[in-house]
């Protein structure tokens, strides 16, 4: 008997008992569905995270002050709650120079920024929301900014303290339209300051490169109102803010440095400066450690769901085995007849294994469809784009077939070994 004939017969016998077939498949459907759903969701989430965080260099370690009362890892720079710090709490240039001196092989550069605050600039009826920060020349490389016009802030700007600004293409299109923004003066209004700056460069805006990541993730404002960063020389910002140090800075590490490990080194370097500070300490945050934290969280969840799926598949497999035994008992006379007509034991065995595999595969396909739908719904609710993985589908098909063969073998073998006369005589 050829495979295709077996397959046709198997489909026929499934359709004979539709309700029974569906109930039998349930365990497989749930198991496979759970696996596919979590894999779809996981893939979507990973894709989203990688996309969002790609603006943040993987070699970067952000070093920031953090209140000693804070517990747990620092995920995002938060300005809220940091207002209580005094000048003595800030990170000084001496501390940073000392760090660079101690680890010259690990540190490529420091990118430093000083946040002045959220503000707005207007031109006629047009306006653009912005967040004003002073940054040093290294900032552009550390944050993977793409300059599309003009230039970035350089060392000379810093030394002289020029009142220059690098703005986003978004800001430009809001207030200048097609006009050339380079050389134009803009007046920037923040909470406590009003100043004018000359635009020297335009960078390409992407949602990933905002200085305050948290603000973007929470933003639901319209495209026009989206706030983008405006960068001015660090020295200018320090004068405006009249500060003596920094609340945070970014370490750009050399290639090949494990940033998770080096983060700890940095923390212990700073601990000697902050040992006697009762209010603040230094925390670090690196892309690598964040991604690995999220990944390990995801894999814990995946593992839990995989365990549930495995149990479901096991129960499903036993269900298939059970129904196959029932089916074979019901069809004892048929088996006897087939043997009398010339079927070999091997052909009988194959027939029932194929039947069991077909049950599992149909269940598997329903599970894949269901899981993909659930994964897509979950991804949509969390705001990700759904991404089904080919691996998960192939895996599901493989696992379903394997369950079919494994749990179908015993009943099929039982059928194959039936004595034809006993089988024909069976009432």
């Amino acid at each position, binding site marked *: *008997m050829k495979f295709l*004939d077996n397959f046709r*017969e198997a489909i026929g*016998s499934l359709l004979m008992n539709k309700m029974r077939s569906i109930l039998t498949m349930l365990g497989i459907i749930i198991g496979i569905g759970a696996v596919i759903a979590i894999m779809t969701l996981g893939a979507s989430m990973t894709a989203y995270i990688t996309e969002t965080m790609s603006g943040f260099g993987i070699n970067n370690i952000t070093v920031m002050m953090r209140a000693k009362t804070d517990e747990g890892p620092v995920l995002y720079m938060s300005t809220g709650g940091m207002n209580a710090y005094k000048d003595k709490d800030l990170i000084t240039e001496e501390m940073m120079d000392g760090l660079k001196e101690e680890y010259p092989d690990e540190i490529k550069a420091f990118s430093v920024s000083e946040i002045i605050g959220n503000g707005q600039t207007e031109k006629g009826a047009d306006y653009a929301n912005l967040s004003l920060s002073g940054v040093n020349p290294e900032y552009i490389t550390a944050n993977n900014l793409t300059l599309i016009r003009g230039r970035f802030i350089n060392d000379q700007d810093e030394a002289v303290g020029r009142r220059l600004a690098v703005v986003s293409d978004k800001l430009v299109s809001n207030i200048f339209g097609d006009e050339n923004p380079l050389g134009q003066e803009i007046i920037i209004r923040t909470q406590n300051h009003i100043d004018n700056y000359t635009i020297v460069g335009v960078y390409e805006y992407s949602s990933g490169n905002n200085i305050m990541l948290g603000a973007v993730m929470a933003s639901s404002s319209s495209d026009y109102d989206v706030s983008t960063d405006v960068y001015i020389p660090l020295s200018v910002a320090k004068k405006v803010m009249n500060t003596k140090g920094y609340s945070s800075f970014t370490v750009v590490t050399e290639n090949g440095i494990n940033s998770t490990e080096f983060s700890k080194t940095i923390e212990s370097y700073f601990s000697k400066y902050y040992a006697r500070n009762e209010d603040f300490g230094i925390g670090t945050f690196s892309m690598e450690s964040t991604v690995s934290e999220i990944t390990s969280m995801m894999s814990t969840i995946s593992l839990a769901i995989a365990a549930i799926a495995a149990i479901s598949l096991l129960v499903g497999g036993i269900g298939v085995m059970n129904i196959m035994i029932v089916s074979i008992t019901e069809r004892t006379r048929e088996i006897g007849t*087939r043997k*009398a*007509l*010339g079927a070999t034991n091997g052909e009988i065995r194959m027939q029932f294994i194929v039947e069991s595999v077909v049950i599992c595969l149909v269940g598997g396909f329903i599970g894949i469809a269901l899981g993909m739908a659930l994964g897509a719904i979950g991804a949509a609710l969390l705001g990700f784009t759904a991404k089904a993985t080919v691996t998960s589908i192939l895996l599901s098909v493989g696992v379903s077939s394997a369950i079919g063969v494994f749990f179908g073998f015993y009943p099929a073998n039982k059928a194959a070994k039936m004595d034809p*006369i006993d089988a024909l005589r069976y009432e």
Partner: protein
Amino acid sequence: MADIITLKDIYKRYFIGKSNELEVIHGIGLSVAEGEFVSIVGESGSGKSTLMNIIGALDRPTEGTYFLDGVNVAALSQDELSLARKMKIGFVFQTFNLIGRISARANVELPMTYARMPRKERQERAQHLLEIVGMGDRAKHQPNELSGGQKQRTAIARAMANDPAILLADEPTGALDSETGLKVLDIFRDLNKNHGKTVVLITHSNALAEHSDRIITLKDGVIIGERRGSADRGEDRGEGDAL
């Protein structure tokens, strides 16, 4: 003509070596010539079916030799027995034993499927066989849509699928009324006369047995009588004659 079935000193015992050991066939010897129509009669429990199963290579004798078409069946492996059943023997059962979920034609196709005949070819042959037994217009029907006589015709067509030399029928008319039974018997006679099939038929009805070449009577596992039927005496030629 050459003997296609040769049984020598056949014994069949059940529960061998146990206290309730039971011998149901006690040294039967029987030969059937190619193209012969033999009936086996005897009371219930006399061992007719047991003997038939041995002839049909479904069962092996406990003792004795059985040559089927020149091959010693006792020496065959399981798969070789399957092959013999598939290619040399066509079974017809009292209870039809058609497979319920598939059409009459699919039932007839089944032995050809096991013989790995291409799909198109076996469909055409199944249709042709159904026409021979007068079931051409019912090919697409499922067994539960057929009458008893129609089911048995389908079963006969199925027995003919791989063009076996021997047709074995264990009370094929047992579940049918006498008129329908006679029609079914006519099919066997036609296949015997016009298609050269060797037929071994078990029946309770002496009247039906009369239509064969030879009638063998079994009692308690031994042959107690053997006589010629009317077919052999040339009195029963021709179609549709009354009992």
